[in-house]
């Protein structure tokens, strides 16, 4: 069976790959959006934290013999802790200044982390085994779905939903949203806003770390795996707007799918299609698809 002269297996395969990439985009831009909402800082180091998550998982498995499920839990927590330390020590000093300084500080963290890991592990990738329980593929009738890829999609969507639920439907999320709108007033109600801010940064980068562990068996674990991703995430965020949580998730997934289709029909453009979509959105709807006017 063919669609536009492309065998349906190939089409579905690329579509699935697109959804996998889209899941990463969704988790990453979700973290970026949460951090931006509360800290008003664009976290350039988001890709570096993604890389940190993958490397932590790799090191845990390599040296402590931890199994995949342990690393999936421990590595994001470690990344979150490291992020909170960074926020508490450095990022905190820049609040109230132009947000550009936050971007630049997190950029410098990228240089330090990427450079450091390159010194320690070299530029080439480290292989990371797919967990045994998730090896193989299932026959869906029209295509074979590698189990691990399916697992990535489900896990990513699940963590997105949980995050959305915590923010929109719990008391903690309510204080978080309050702090986003009016930090000083929230503080006046007796909520410890600085601690909330640290926690938010931790959760945001923890999400990036989680995505990193998920990505480890698919991509090779290497020091620069995060930086090319973070630039795509920035484009996703410009397209979707940083204003809404759901917007970030939907835009991320959608662009992954668009990218997948582009790889089928016009593979030369597959690495640039997200940027081209960004140009189009800027021309037609400068504020972004889900964007409120920036304030």
């Amino acid at each position: 069976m063919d669609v536009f002269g492309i065998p349906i297996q190939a089409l579905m395969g690329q579509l699935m790959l697109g959804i996998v990439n889209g899941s990463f985009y969704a988790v990453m831009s979700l973290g970026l959006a949460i951090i931006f909402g509360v800290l008003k800082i664009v976290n350039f180091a988001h890709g570096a934290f993604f890389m940190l998550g993958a490397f932590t998982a790799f090191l845990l498995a390599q040296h402590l013999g931890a199994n995949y499920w342990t690393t999936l839990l421990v590595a994001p927590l470690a990344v979150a802790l490291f992020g909170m330390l960074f926020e508490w020590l450095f990022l905190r000093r820049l609040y109230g200044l132009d947000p550009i300084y936050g971007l630049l500080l997190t950029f410098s963290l990228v240089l330090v982390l990427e450079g450091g890991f390159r010194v320690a592990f070299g530029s080439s990738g480290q292989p990371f085994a797919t967990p045994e329980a998730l090896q193989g593929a299932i026959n869906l009738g029209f295509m074979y779905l590698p189990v691990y890829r399916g697992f990535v999609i489900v896990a990513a969507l699940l963590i997105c939903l949980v995050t959305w639920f915590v923010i929109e439907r719990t008391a903690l999320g309510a204080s978080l949203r309050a702090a986003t709108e009016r930090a000083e007033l929230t503080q006046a109600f007796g909520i410890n806003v600085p601690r909330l801010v640290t926690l938010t940064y931790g959760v945001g980068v923890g999400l990036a770390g989680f995505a990193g562990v998920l990505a480890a068996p698919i991509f090779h674990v290497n020091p620069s795996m995060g930086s090319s991703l973070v630039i795509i995430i920035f484009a996703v965020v410009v397209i979707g707007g940083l204003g809404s949580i759901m917007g970030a998730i939907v835009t991320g997934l959608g662009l992954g799918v668009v990218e997948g289709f582009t790889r089928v029909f016009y593979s030369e453009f597959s690495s640039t299609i997200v940027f081209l979509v960004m140009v189009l959105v800027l021309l037609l709807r400068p504020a972004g698809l889900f964007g409120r006017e920036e304030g």
Partner: protein
Amino acid sequence: MQLRYLTWPLLAVGLLALLAVPFFPQVVYIVFVMKALCFVLFACAFNLLLGHTGILSFGHAAFFGTGAYVTGHLVKTYGLPTELGILAGGLVAALLGAVIGALAIRRSGIYLAMITLAMSQLVFFFFLQAPFAGAEDGLQRIPRGTFLGVLDLNNDTALYYVVVGIVGGGLWVVWRTVNSPFGHVLRAIREHEPRAISLGYPVARYKVLVFSLSAGLSGIAGSLKAIIFQLAALYDVHWHTSGDVILMTLLGGMNTVFGPAVGAAIVAALNHYLDPFGAWVTVIIGVVFMACVLTFRQGVVGELSRLLNRRRIAPLRQPAGRRTRAHH
């Protein structure tokens, strides 16, 4: 003593030192000085946006690299005279700057930074995939040629003086722009964009113009780099280079005209002399960057002039704790 009064004597001393460089090959490596000069022009051109208009572009490597590739390709494949090649590199970069600028200024602040970064990544992929650009190898063995048909540029000393001349001309353009009525409008936009609009200035047009000018000069810097090293490579369009130029500007002092030049010299020296440490260079540069953002946001020249100012008229004038005005 204000730094302002020291500007001309310092410039004169600096120029003399530059002219003397070829006579002391045992003290300083002439090719390194040429490379540093390219970055001096690049950083000062970049600062037209960051320091003088309050726009952070995170994609200036796109213009630097485009200059390098265009010049390299024209000189190597079509045998264009070197000076025309450099001019073409600057022009194409300026055009690209107008296009990217027009897109980017549809948003402001950090969004603008992200857009320029994404656009420069687009340019990066273009040079990665374009058949003439040689993919991972880049353009190699670009002939240096002659300058105006008389001066053989394969001679390092001759090339050096040509580079000094062109960079000097570029810096003069920057200085004239900053001190022109046009430059005053740019500062008005930086300080209070809505007021500049309400005064009737076509702010968008001004922004695109300065974007294009900054991109053109950055392109010339890249063209020179391609001629000096006879190489245009992917690193020239890589976001690392965009980050480098921001660091240079910040480190030197973005609220000064020639501070970025000092910053460029420092970063180029760091890169050059720390080269034996390999991958550690990135870490060290990152730490310097961090220290710069956290503790001395006025940069070396900015802090210096603040110190000098304070000695004389400390109670009268607050040290200008100015920061870029970015409206978002």
